[in-house]
C-alpha cells in the first residue's frame, strides 16, 4: 500500500484542481494564470535564451583565442556572408558580442531570473493563492515571449541583428548607414526591448502589490523570507528605472527613422556629411545608464535573496543580521539610482561631478560588504549540508567578493581612465554580475526544483556542474584582469597586431578552451534539468530540506491556489533554525509559552 499521507494529499489536490477548473491543456500549460506555471515558463524560456547567448560567447571566444584561424564548420553553419572560409567576419563578431550581452543581461538574468523566482516564490512564501492580478501576470510572460520572438527573428534577417554593443550607443545605433548591424536589426532590437520593458513593468507592478497587500495572517513584513524582500526591491528598481530606458529608446527610434537628431551631430559616414545637427550622444548614455546601472542590481538582488535563504537553510542557522540584510538591500536600491555616471567617467564630464559619483559609487561597497559578512557569519560554525544548492550559494559569495573588489578599482575615476573599456571591466562585471548571478540562479533551481516539479535534480551531476563551472569561471575571467591592466581593449576583433598583447596569446587560447568546457557543462545541466523533470528521484516528503518557509507546507505538487484547505497562519520569522534544542521550527508553528521570538 502507498501509505504516504502527503502523496495522497498531493493526488487529491490535483484531482480537485481538474474538477474545479475544468482546465484544458491550453489554460493549464500555455495561457496559464497560475503563478507557478508562469514561473516555469519564464525559467524555460530563459534557459533557451541562455543556451543561445552562451553559444554566441563560445563563437566569439573562438575568434579571440584563435584569431585568423579557420574553422570550416562555421562556414557550413553560418554561410559565406558571416563566416567566409570559416573565419568570423568583423560584423559577425560585433553581432555576436552585442547579442550575447543583450540576451544574457535582459532575457536570461532579468526575465529568466526575476520572472522565475518572483513568480514561484512570492505567493508561496507569503501565503497567497496567487498574484494580485494573475491576468496581468500572464500578460507579463506573453509580452516577454513577444519580445523574445522579435529579438530571435532579428538573428535571421539578412543584415543580421544589432551589432553596436548591448549598450546600443549612438551614433552606431542611430544611423541606418553606420554599419550593417545598424540596419533592420537595430530597429528590431528597439522594438523587442520596448516589449520587454512592458513585460518587466507588468511583472514588477504585480510583485510589489502582491507583497504589500496579499500576505497571510501573521506574515508581517519583518517575518518575510529574504527571498521575498529581494525580489520586492528588485521590482521597485525595475519599475522606476526601465521607463527611463524606454524614453531613451523612443528618442533613439525617432533619430533613426523620423529624422530628428537628439543624439546626432556633425557626423560623416563614408565621406558623406549627415544632415543631423545639434544632438548629443552623451545624452543617450545618461538615459541608458540611468537604467543600466540599476539593471545590474536587478540582476543581482534576486540572487542575493536566494543565497541568503539557501545558506541559512543549509547551515541550519538563522540568517545573521536579518534586519541588516533588509537595510542593506534598501541601501543598495536607493544608491543604485545615484551612481549611473560611473560608466561615463571618460565622456569628458566635469571632474568635480565625477568625484561626486565616485563617492556615491564607493558607498555601495558598504551595504555590499554588510551582506557579504552576514553570509559568512551565517556559515560560521554552521551545521553545513553541502547540497548542490548550497555549493552554488557559497560559490556565489566567492564570486561576488572577487568581482566586487575590482568594483572599487573601476569606481575610482582616476583609475578608470586607464581601465575603462578594457578587459578589466569585462573581468569585473562577469565575476560580480554574470557568473555570480548564474550561481545564485543555479542555487535557486537546485533548491526549489522539488517544489517546481516534485522531483530532485541529480545531485552527482550537480556536484560536477558546480566544480567545473566554479574552477572554469575563475580560469576564464581571472586572467582578464591582467590583460585589462596591460591596456587590452574590450570588444576588439583581433589584438594580435599589437606586439604588446602578444604575451597574452597563450592565455587567450586557454581561456577559449576553458570557455568551451564550461559551456558543455551547462549543457549537461540542461540535460539534468530535462531528464529530472520526467525521471528524477521523486520527492516523498513535503519538506525535503527541512526548511521553515511556507512553500514547504503546500502539497508536494500544489494545484492552482497552492493550499488545498485554509492558507496557513504565520507565527514567527522564517529563520528559527537550531533553536531551543530543535533543528528547525516552521513559520506556522505557534510561539511556545516561554519562548522568546526574534520577530
Amino acid at each position, binding site marked *: 500500500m502507498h501509505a504516504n499521507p502527503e502523496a495522497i494529499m498531493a493526488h487529491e489536490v490535483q484531482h*480537485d*484542481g481538474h474538477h*474545479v477548473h475544468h482546465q484544458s491543456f491550453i489554460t493549464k500549460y500555455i495561457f496559464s494564470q497560475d503563478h507557478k506555471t508562469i514561473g516555469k515558463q519564464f525559467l524555460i524560456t530563459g534557459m533557451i535564451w541562455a543556451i543561445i547567448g552562451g553559444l554566441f560567447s563560445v563563437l566569439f571566444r573562438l575568434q579571440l583565442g584563435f584569431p585568423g584561424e579557420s574553422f570550416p564548420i562555421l562556414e557550413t553553419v553560418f554561410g559565406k556572408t558571416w563566416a567566409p572560409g570559416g573565419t568570423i567576419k568583423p560584423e559577425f563578431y560585433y553581432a555576436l558580442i552585442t547579442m550575447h550581452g543583450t540576451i544574457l543581461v535582459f532575457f536570461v538574468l532579468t526575465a529568466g531570473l526575476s520572472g522565475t523566482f518572483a513568480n514561484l516564490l512570492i505567493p508561496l512564501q507569503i501565503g*497567497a*493563492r*496567487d*498574484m*494580485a*492580478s*494573475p491576468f*496581468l501576470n500572464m500578460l507579463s510572460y506573453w509580452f516577454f515571449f513577444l519580445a523574445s520572438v522579435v529579438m530571435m527573428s532579428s538573428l535571421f534577417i539578412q543584415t543580421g541583428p544589432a551589432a553596436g554593443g548591448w549598450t546600443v550607443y549612438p551614433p552606431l545605433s542611430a544611423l541606418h548607414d553606420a554599419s550593417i548591424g545598424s540596419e533592420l536589426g537595430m530597429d528590431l532590437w528597439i522594438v523587442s526591448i520596448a516589449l520587454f520593458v512592458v513585460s518587466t*513593468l507588468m511583472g*514588477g*507592478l*504585480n510583485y*510589489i*502589490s*502582491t507583497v*504589500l*497587500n*496579499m500576505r*497571510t495572517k501573521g506574515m508581517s513584513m519583518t517575518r518575510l523570507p529574504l527571498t521575498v524582500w529581494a525580489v520586492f526591491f528588485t521590482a521597485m528598481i525595475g*519599475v*522606476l*528605472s*526601465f*521607463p*527611463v530606458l*524606454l*524614453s*531613451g529608446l*523612443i*528618442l533613439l527610434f*525617432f533619430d533613426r527613422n*523620423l*529624422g*530628428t*537628431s*537628439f*543624439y546626432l*551631430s556633425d557626423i560623416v559616414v563614408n565621406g558623406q556629411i549627415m*544632415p543631423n*545637427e*545639434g*544632438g*548629443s550622444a552623451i*545624452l543617450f548614455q*545618461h*538615459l541608458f545608464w*540611468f537604467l543600466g546601472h540599476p539593471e545590474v542590481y536587478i540582476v543581482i538582488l534576486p540572487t542575493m535573496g536566494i543565497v541568503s535563504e539557501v545558506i541559512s537553510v543549509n547551515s541550519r542557522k538563522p540568517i545573521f543580521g536579518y534586519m541588516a540584510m533588509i537595510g542593506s538591500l534598501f541601501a543598495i536600491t536607493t544608491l543604485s539610482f545615484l551612481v549611473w555616471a560611473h560608466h561615463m567617467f571618460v565622456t569628458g564630464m566635469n571632474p568635480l561631478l565625477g568625484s561626486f559619483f565616485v563617492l556615491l559609487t564607493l558607498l555601495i561597497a558598504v551595504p555590499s560588504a554588510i551582506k557579504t559578512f552576514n553570509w559568512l557569519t551565517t556559515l560560521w560554525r554552521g551545521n553545513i549540508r553541502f547540497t548542490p544548492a548550497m555549493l552554488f550559494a557559497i560559490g556565489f559569495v566567492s564570486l561576488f567578493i572577487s568581482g566586487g573588489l575590482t568594483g572599487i578599482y573601476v569606481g575610482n575615476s582616476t583609475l578608470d581612465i586607464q581601465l575603462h573599456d578594457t578587459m578589466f571591466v569585462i573581468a569585473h562585471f562577469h565575476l560580480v554580475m554574470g557568473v555570480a548571478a548564474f550561481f545564485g540562479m543555479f542555487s535557486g533551481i537546485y533548491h526549489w526544483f522539488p517544489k517546481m516539479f516534485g522531483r530532485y535534480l541529480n545531485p552527482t551531476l550537480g556536484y560536477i556542474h558546480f566544480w567545473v563551472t566554479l574552477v572554469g569561471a575563475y580560469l576564464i575571467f581571472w586572467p582578464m584582469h591582467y590583460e585589462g591592466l596591460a591596456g587590452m581593449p574590450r570588444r576588439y576583433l583581433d589584438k594580435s597586431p599589437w606586439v604588446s598583447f602578444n604575451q597574452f596569446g597563450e592565455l587567450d587560447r586557454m581561456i577559449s578552451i576553458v570557455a568551451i568546457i564550461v559551456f558543455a557543462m551547462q549543457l549537461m545541466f540542461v540535460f539534468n534539468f530535462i531528464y529530472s523533470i520526467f525521471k528524477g528521484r521523486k520527492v516523498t516528503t513535503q519538506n525535503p530540506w527541512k526548511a521553515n518557509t511556507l512553500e514547504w507546507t503546500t502539497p508536494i505538487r500544489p*494545484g*492552482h*491556489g497552492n493550499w*488545498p484547505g485554509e*492558507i496557513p497562519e504565520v507565527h514567527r520569522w522564517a529563520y528559527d533554525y537550531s533553536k531551543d534544542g530543535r533543528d528547525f521550527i516552521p513559520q506556522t508553528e505557534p510561539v511556545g509559552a516561554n519562548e522568546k521570538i526574534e520577530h
Partner: protein
Amino acid sequence: MDIVSTQQRKKIHPHKFTLWVAIASMIMMFAGMTSAYVVKSNQAGWQEVVVPKIFWGSTVAIVASSLTIQMALRSFKQRAMSPYRLLLAITLILGILFIVFQWMGFFQLWEQQKVTLRGSGAGQFLYIIFGLHALHVLGGVIALLVMLMKAFFGKTKQYTAVPVELITTYWHFVDALWIYLMLFFLWVG
C-alpha cells in the same frame, strides 16, 4: 477553491495599489523625457518654440473632464445610474476633444511655425512628449469607452466601484501630468 485575489485584501484594493505603482512608473518615463529636455536645452544650437495657444483649449478640456469623472464616480457610488452614464459620456467626449486639440496644436506648429522633425530642439521634444501623453489619454479614452458600453449594455448584478475608481484615478493622473507638461514647456521651454 477560490483564487480570487481580492479575498485577502487589506486596507487598499490590490488593483488600486498596482495602479499607483504604475503611475510612479509613468512619472519616471516623463521625468526621463523632461530631464533629457533640460540637458539638451543647455547645449549649443538649441531651438525654442512658441507653444500654440490651442493647447490652452486642451487644458480646459482635460481639467473639465477631471471634474466630470469625479462627479460620475460620486453618482455611481450613490447608484444613480443615469447621471453616471451621462457624466461618463461627457468625460469621454472631453477626452476625445483633448486629443483633437492636441492634434490641431501639432498641426499649427508644423504649418505655421514650420517646426518639423528635423533637429532636436524644443519643438521635436514637444511632439514626442505631448504625443506620448496623448497616447496615455487615448488609453484612458478606450477604457472609458469600455466602461460606457458596460454602463449601457452590461447586466452586471455586482455593484463594485473599483473599476470606476481605477479609471478615475488614472484620469486625474493624465490630467495632472498634462498640467505639469504644459507648465514645463511654458517656463522651462
